[in-house]
């Protein structure tokens, strides 16, 4: 058992994540309190840019709710999903406050949205297969009213266009901001999800509930109509062809190469995932915000964290593959969604998610590249 397994278990068993907003990255302003410092959240886009997105809406084929969201999710122990999931199948792991939940891609690909309640809060876990983006949102309107989401059947930049059931405002998933309706301009709070495989997740030995295929609908769970993330026949995921039009294109990377998209204020950063997986720690700066892209070797996922605590900025490097070392020799560990320092200091995650390069660029053509 490596250190990351220990720390992950510690996170679960001791509920070490007690402070507010540890996983919630879309907090209104940067702050330093209680020994932690949260990165500046994403800023809303201008109305003019939102209008451009609204004008580019296209039909994806199904009607509204033709891809039905899961509104009454059921969770089961991991061993109850072994009949369906193969070792290489993808799962998305959510850490939110004291809770950890696992959402299999092979279930989400048929529904794209799970309206869930986690730690007593309304959370919607979303996945768009066309753009390879999985993001959890806090379902909360500016007035505090809960929001739940459905699929509009439409796309923007090939990305899932959600609508909220309370106001019918439309929200492109990767934007996380309403582009039409009475909530137009409103930005949702995003919570990162970790991509990993079923095999790697189970190897953690963590007893976390897994979204069941008992969704209230009947679908071909076990198959993915878009292709496969592993194997020789990857279908849509494995070729460079786009199906739906996008607003902006760039050939810096292959269209479907995965980048870690980071949002800080008005700035955007694309970190090539493959490159990030080659490093233990990648110290970066975006909008004067010191960040570190951190590889989780056990899950083969990449997370992005703040590396600033009050006025102190850390610079990290890998240490034995299990932990990080700052410039003063202090040893840090990833504990669920935070980095924990030698004195119990905690650095929270930034706003980030995995996505295909073409889609990230189409939404954020001014993006910086790591």
């Amino acid at each position, binding site marked *: 058992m490596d250190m990351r397994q220990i720390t992950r278990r510690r996170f679960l068993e001791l509920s070490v994540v007690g402070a507010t907003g540890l996983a919630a990255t879309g907090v209104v302003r940067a702050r330093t309190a209680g020994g932690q410092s949260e990165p500046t959240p994403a800023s809303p886009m201008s109305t003019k840019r939102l209008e451009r997105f609204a004008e580019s809406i296209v*039909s994806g084929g199904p009607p509204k709710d*033709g891809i039905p969201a899961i509104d009454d999710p059921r969770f089961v122990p991991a061993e*109850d999903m072994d009949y369906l999931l193969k070792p290489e199948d993808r799962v998305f792991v959510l850490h939110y406050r004291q809770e950890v939940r696992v959402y299999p891609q092979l279930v989400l690909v048929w529904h794209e949205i799970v309206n869930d309640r986690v730690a007593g809060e309304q959370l919607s876990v979303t996945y768009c297969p066309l753009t390879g983006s999985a993001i959890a949102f806090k379902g909360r309107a500016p007035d505090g009213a809960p929001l739940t989401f459905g699929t509009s059947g439409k796309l923007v930049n090939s990305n899932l266009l959600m609508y909220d059931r309370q106001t019918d405002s439309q929200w492109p998933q990767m934007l996380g901001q309403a582009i039409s309706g009475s909530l137009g301009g409103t930005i949702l709070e995003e919570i990162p999800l970790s991509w990993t495989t079923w095999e790697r997740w189970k190897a953690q030995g963590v007893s976390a509930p897994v979204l069941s295929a008992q969704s209230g609908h*009947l679908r071909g769970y076990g198959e993915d*109509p878009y292709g496969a993330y592993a194997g020789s026949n990857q279908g*849509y995921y494995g070729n460079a*062809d786009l*199906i*739906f039009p996008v607003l902006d294109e760039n050939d810096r990377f292959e269209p479907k190469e995965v980048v870690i998209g980071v949002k800080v204020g008005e700035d955007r950063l694309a970190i090539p995932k493959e490159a990030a997986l080659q490093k233990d720690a990648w110290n970066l700066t975006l909008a004067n915000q010191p960040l570190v892209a951190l590889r989780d070797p056990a899950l083969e996922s990449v997370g992005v964290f703040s590396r600033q605590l009050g006025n102190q900025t850390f610079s990290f490097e890998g240490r034995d593959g299990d932990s990080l070392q700052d410039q003063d020799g202090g040893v840090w560990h990833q504990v669920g969604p935070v980095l924990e320092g030698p004195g119990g200091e905690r650095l929270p995650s930034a706003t980030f998610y995995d996505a295909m390069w073409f889609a990230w660029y189409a939404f954020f053509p001014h993006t910086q590249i790591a």
Partner: protein
Amino acid sequence: MALSVSGQILAQALRRSRLRLIALAAGLVYLLLYVYSLGHLVIDRNVTVPGETPAFVAVPDWTSKSFERVGGVSFEPIAALYLAPGLTLFIAPVNLLIGATLASLIALNVATAAYALTVARSCRRLPWTGLLGSLPALLTGFVCCVPTVALVLGANLALAIISVQMFLLPVSLASLVISLGWNIRRARKELVEGSISLSVFESGNVGLQRRHGQ
């Protein structure tokens, strides 16, 4: 009278056991193709259910879900029959009804086309082109799996199909009805031109009594 004659020609065509078998086989094949195109007949070992097969699973709120549209003219499955490992049938009643209607029209088209051929005075080609009208309906279900269509047919064609998806089923139905009418008309013409007494035919003595030896 025209309707009556058409009905008798249909009856005559279906009275022949060989034609009946061919028509039934064509209808069944089409129904299977239609259900497969919707993604409701799945041949994939990865699609499975906990426990042994065969297994039957139904959703509790099947009455309301039966009419929930999930694609162009594709409706929510309310039950699944896991027939064997790798073979699953999803049951959407509205789609089965549509599929059965299309399959019946296919069967009647095949039967009447073959019948028209048997009464033709000279060897002629079967009017199979009329069956092409059944193809658009097979695309009605594909819109639920746009990437699959795009991979096979290309993105442009997939997008074109999306834009006309609501018209595909009506076009198929209309084509098959027109084709059926054409086949009946052709058979009737052959019977008349072949000097078969229409009065004999209409009287029910429809044994294809040609006046030979003329």
